[in-house]
């Protein structure tokens, strides 16, 4: 870095400055909608309905959040979102690392066929039609009174990527480690728990982040499942329902506060782990 700066001419420096300004401008554009919604959530409803070009609230109204939290059931929605994303994360972590280990290390007839079906269904996308039979199945089994079907379907639709990530990682672990464990008397499963899982930590971090995000951001599937069950809605559904049912001059301040509640936790996680998020997303795409 120092070397290249040393040979930079004045003209190059000017070009770099222009580029920097352009990139900063793009960064402001990118971040603007989020800043707008968060600052707007402190405006009064009257100020929001009048509009204008002011980003900062003229008066700060933190009570919008109280109104959303207690009046508009956002406490329930938040709890549901947290439950769904944590469960999706834990289940995904457990079953996909296990599957990645089996696909990498075990040999049994039909293994490659099963793997091929996983790959095939990553490319087959039929859209929302697949939610219908699952909804009918959950209703028939009386599971639609709980968050369980939402969690399981979210895990089921996301697991393929995580399995590929895990398998790729286990493939890179030297086989001598397993063999040593086997000689020491470890069974296949014990080898997984004691030897492989500790080595898998980096890829588990990636899977944890990606699956948490997936659970938190899920929208259409929980929308269908909670159509008649207000108390099971996650934040994404709750805030959009509020908008749809409120009509024209609805409480924009509550909707802004609700949208902020839905976005801010994810943003905090992103700020803390942005490097892992970015490496995880490309790894998933390249492997998938």
């Amino acid at each position: 870095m120092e070397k290249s700066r040393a040979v930079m001419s004045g003209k190059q420096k000017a070009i770099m400055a222009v580029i920097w300004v352009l990139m900063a401008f793009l960064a402001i554009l990118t971040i603007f909608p989020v800043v707008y919604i968060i600052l707007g959530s402190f405006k009064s409803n009257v100020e929001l309905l009048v509009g204008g070009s002011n980003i900062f609230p003229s008066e700060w109204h933190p009570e919008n959040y109280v109104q959303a939290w207690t009046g508009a059931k956002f406490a329930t929605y938040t709890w549901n979102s947290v439950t769904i994303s944590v469960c999706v994360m834990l289940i995904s972590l457990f079953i996909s690392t296990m599957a990645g280990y089996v696909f990498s290390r075990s040999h049994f007839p039909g293994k490659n066929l099963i793997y091929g079906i996983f790959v095939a269904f990553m490319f087959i996308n039929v859209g929302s039609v697949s939610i219908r039979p699952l909804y009918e199945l959950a209703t028939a089994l009386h599971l639609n009174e709980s968050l369980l079907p939402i969690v399981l379907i979210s895990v089921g639709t996301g697991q393929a990527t995580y399995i590929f990530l895990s398998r790729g990682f286990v493939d890179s672990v030297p086989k001598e480690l397993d063999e040593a464990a086997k000689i020491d008397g470890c069974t296949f499963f014990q080898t997984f728990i004691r030897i492989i899982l500790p080595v898998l930590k980096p890829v588990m971090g990636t899977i944890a982040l990606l699956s948490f995000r997936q659970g938190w951001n899920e929208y259409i599937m929980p929308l269908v499942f909670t159509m008649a069950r207000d108390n099971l809605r996650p934040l994404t559904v709750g805030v959009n329902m509020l908008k749809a049912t409120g009509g024209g001059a609805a409480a924009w301040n509550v909707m802004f506060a609700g949208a902020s509640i839905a976005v801010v936790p994810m943003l905090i996680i992103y700020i803390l782990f942005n490097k892992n998020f970015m490496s995880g997303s490309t790894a998933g795409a390249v492997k998938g």
Partner: protein
Amino acid sequence: MSNKGMKKQVKKEDRRDRISAILMLSPVVFLLLICSIYPFLWMFRYVCYDYNGFSATFTGARNFTRMISDTTFWSSVGHTFEYAFYKLVFIIPLALICAVLLNQKIKGTSVFRAIYFMPTVISSSISGMIFTFIFATQNGILNGILMALGMGAPVQWLTSPDHVMTAVTVLAVWGGFGNYMLYFITGMNVISEDVYEAAKIDGANGVQTFFKITLPMLSPILKVVLMLAITGAFKDYEAIMVLTQGGPGNRSMVMFLYIYNMIFGSGLTNMTQPQIGYGALLSVVAAIIVGLVTIAYQRIARRLDDVM
């Protein structure tokens, strides 16, 4: 222990390992069966039926003839292509430019990269909602800013058929360019520093370096990214569903949103009767359309390979 006994022992262990392997694989296979294979087969079951969620009647080829003359569906297919075209035309160059610029030795690149990628961690349903507030005609901040800058009348971003695709495209580009930028950056890291050093010694400037080195060496990555972007654009409907509900007058209705309305009834609150059998047929057709586009793209990409 005799040789024979040891063999037996090994065999027994192998068998036990195999059983535990199958047990360990069973959760993901179970979910694959329930969440992917079962719905896929289910879809074909109702293709020839009229099914509203309660009663199904066999109607033969009627869904098919209806589809042929369903102008709303075919225009939604057209809108899907239109949307994919706009999205790609803006998102790929923007992502590529950002990636190239972030690859320079400029201060703050990691912050810029993190900011550009940020929209991808937000649920598209929430970003769709945020943009309905931004694009609102009377009190939206975009019109507020434009009018403060001297524009006469507010633009009907979401309620005019002339502007709605602009709004949809802006949202799509905002929500996705960081992701594709990251793919490009990952691809560029593979290009060795030596190549750039050599180009520098030969006196190549930034633009020449980009067209003579970065772009050709990036072409395998570019092909993969284009592929992901195309298939992704055809499948987008969540954000559009929240932003415009396909309106005004179906102007922003894309294929998969139309299908959603068939299968679950349109609108969040005023539910129309679902037409699941017809929706299932359209889903099959939509999947075939996406498949054909993918194949067509791969043909074109291969042909380009021969030319280049």
